[in-house]
């Protein structure tokens, strides 16, 4: 059984911080199909459209009938552990620094045999396991075999923790904790065992219901932070930047307007100032320290979470300028992801459907509740995905977008 994680001792400031190394990240283009699924938290394998064969490793043709019509389909991952090893010697620095490492050979019930990282609680072979796909530090899909049934403390498994961004014993910054989402996140992270939750707030003259209660949560520490103020962001980074393991950017400026309904650019500029330039300011001040701390012990810097919107994928004309600011933020987040990739810090983009808040008042339900969204974000940190689409609306828009982005554009235009 996995031993529960214990709170790490305070960092010895005299010791050198280890430079992050990564597991091998090279993949063939066809293998990136596995990564595309894992990025959304799914374990998908190639399935032949002509003969139905399921195959792995990824191929350019069907192993059985040589068809090239291969679709990536979600699999349940159930299988049998055929053999295992405890690796004590590795040719790569990343693993060399983490020896020993448990590996398994698993025959999936759907057919293929896979090499997988093997959770410490899996029974010796032959035994039943579940295989999951998650992104590793290199940002590539990696398969992990976990016990068939959950075990106590299984998230604390040393190898599994290398695949996740579990907030337990980590220090988290929420850039805007005044909103209902920010407050719900602070509570959820504290409940998930976060060591410190810095609750950022701007515009102190503007009281938000419930915000002051946050201070009563022992782990929560209030932090003035206005993302539109470069100086304030720099000061905050100077104060806590070297300790932030998980940064969750919830700051969001949202108005309901398209182009024709309002003269001038002031509203759009305000949205961009928070949603796009705010992210840029944050990234410039906080990312360097996180990049340096990608391998800083058990509670290293692991994740940067951006609150985007499903509107970032395709413009929603009634919230047209807001959509544009989120699309800009998405593009910048991809840049940030690339720049943090060398440190193994995961950039998680959150694409919720409309949140049930005042700026979405006129949108019909279903709208995602802030507490539910906070829960999904914490789950994403515990999992292995980098793009999440919480709520029914987001799921449906995503499906429509993946199926035919032009059709979605027309449908959204009609919603005007």
């Amino acid at each position, binding site marked *: 059984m996995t031993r529960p994680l214990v709170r790490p001792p305070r960092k010895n400031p005299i010791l050198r911080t280890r430079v992050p190394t990564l*597991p*091998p*990240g*090279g*993949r*063939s283009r066809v*293998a990136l199909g596995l990564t595309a699924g894992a990025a959304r938290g799914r374990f998908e394998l190639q399935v032949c459209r002509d003969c139905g064969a399921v195959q*792995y*490793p*990824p191929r350019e043709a069907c192993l059985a009938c040589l068809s090239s019509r291969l679709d990536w389909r979600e699999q349940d991952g159930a299988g049998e552990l*055929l*053999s*295992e*090893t*405890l*690796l*004590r*010697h*590795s*040719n*790569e620095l*990343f*693993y060399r620094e983490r020896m020993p*490492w448990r*590996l398994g*050979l698993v*025959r999936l019930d759907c057919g293929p*045999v*896979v*090499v*997988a*990282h093997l959770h410490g609680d899996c029974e010796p*072979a032959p035994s039943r396991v579940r295989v999951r796909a998650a992104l*590793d530090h*290199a940002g*590539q899909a*990696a*398969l992990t075999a976990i016990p068939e049934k959950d075990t106590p403390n299984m998230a604390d498994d040393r190898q599994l923790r290398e695949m996740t961004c579990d907030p337990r014993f980590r220090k988290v910054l929420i850039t805007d904790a005044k909103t209902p989402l920010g407050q719900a996140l602070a509570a959820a992270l504290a409940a998930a065992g976060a060591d410190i939750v810095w609750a950022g707030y701007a515009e102190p003259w503007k009281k938000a219901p419930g915000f002051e209660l946050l201070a009563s949560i022992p782990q929560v520490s209030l932090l003035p932070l206005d993302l539109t103020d470069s100086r304030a962001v720099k000061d905050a980074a100077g104060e806590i930047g070297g300790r932030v393991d998980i940064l969750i950017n919830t700051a969001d400026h949202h108005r309901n307007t398209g182009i024709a309904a309002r003269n001038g650019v002031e509203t759009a500029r305000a949205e961009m100032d928070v949603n796009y330039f705010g992210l840029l300011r944050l990234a410039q001040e906080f990312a360097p320290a996180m990049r340096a701390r990608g391998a800083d012990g058990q509670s290293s810097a692991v994740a940067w979470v951006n609150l985007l919107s499903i509107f970032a994928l395709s413009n929603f004309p009634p919230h047209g300028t807001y959509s544009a600011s989120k699309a800009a933020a998405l593009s910048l987040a991809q840049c940030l992801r690339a720049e943090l990739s060398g440190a193994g810090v995961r950039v998680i983009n959150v694409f919720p459907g409309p949140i049930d808040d005042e700026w979405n008042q006129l949108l019909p339900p279903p709208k995602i509740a802030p507490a539910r969204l906070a829960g999904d974000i914490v789950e994403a940190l515990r999992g292995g995905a980098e793009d999440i689409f919480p709520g029914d609306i987001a799921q449906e828009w995503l499906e429509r977008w993946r199926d035919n982005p032009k059709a979605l554009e027309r449908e959204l235009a009609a919603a005007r």
Partner: protein
Amino acid sequence: MKRPRAAYDDVVIAVPVTVPYVRHSIRGAHWFLARALAELLKVSGLGKHQIDGLCVSSFTLAPDTAVGLTQHLGVTLRWLDHIPMGGACGIVALRRAARAVQNGDAQAVACIAGDTNHTDSFRLNLATFSQFARDAVYPYGSGGANASFAFLTAHYMRSYGAKPEDFGKLCVAQRDNALQFPHALMKKPLTLEEYLTARPIADPLRLFDCVMPCAGADAFLVLSRADAEELGLPYARILSTIERHNAFPDDPIQYRGGWALDRDELYAHAGIGPQDVDVLATYDDYPVISLMQMEDLGFCEKGQAPDFVRRHSFGVGGSFPVNTSGGQLSVGQAGAAGGFLGLVEIVRQLTGQALGGAVAGARTGLASGFGMINYDRGLCSGAALLAARGGPS
């Protein structure tokens, strides 16, 4: 209807050459291959112009292939082959070359295999060994073949009751053989106790279960019997050969190799049986695969190799001489040359040219090859039955 296979009448293998192995080298693969060819010419007495066929195997020749090597070494050829089949390359080279000589496409084929080993070349080779390895194996712990063979070994032990002592007995015997073989990199005796208590590498594998990568080359010459006799070269005759790729793809984990599919044909074609084999060279990068070869090549039933090992001794004077030069486990694995080492040793044993211990009266030898852990198993297997000049026909 299946067409009958032609015999290898009047084609022979001669001039076993080893370019001494070294742990690391600053030379390129071309250097080792050049030394192998030069030694082949020197021993055979042939001039460069008399070699009209060349067969090359190497992992570290990039960006060159055999083609580049012709200009690099200044040879003009009418027959050229490049065999990237790792541990099966020696057997396959012999098969290809023998048919070329038999059919007159070439008169004398030099088969050479070799690699260099810089301090970091092993890792670089592993990382890009195959598309499946890069996509689906190497990112998992980056253990290379150690991890793959750990899976197979653990599964084999569980299935057939093999004990560490069984693998150890073979490794210790091969080390004893190696102590007499001048080119072996391992010069120190190995005890079973040392084997059993060595550093664990990838459970259940320990240090002496794993080959040591090194640099070096091996070579042999394939030519007609008449030419060999005219040149006064000792030779071995080719009784039969087999090769197989991606055998038993539906086995969830490898517990047998392609030999199991082809061995009946091998012995029928040769007109002899496993009981007639005087000396065996298994492909031995890890001992479990040697045990599988003992089973799949018909020396014992599937699953009986542990018992077979317990009942036999493997030295040159033993009841079942195996890997009489020490095998890769004690000589070293010079990349693709690992696919030649056993074959070259069998030729030496059958031609009275043993560099170390000689198996007295060896008339028939079997060399086996196994190569290319492309994903979860070795894909290439092959074997060659050879006979001494006056041996079975």
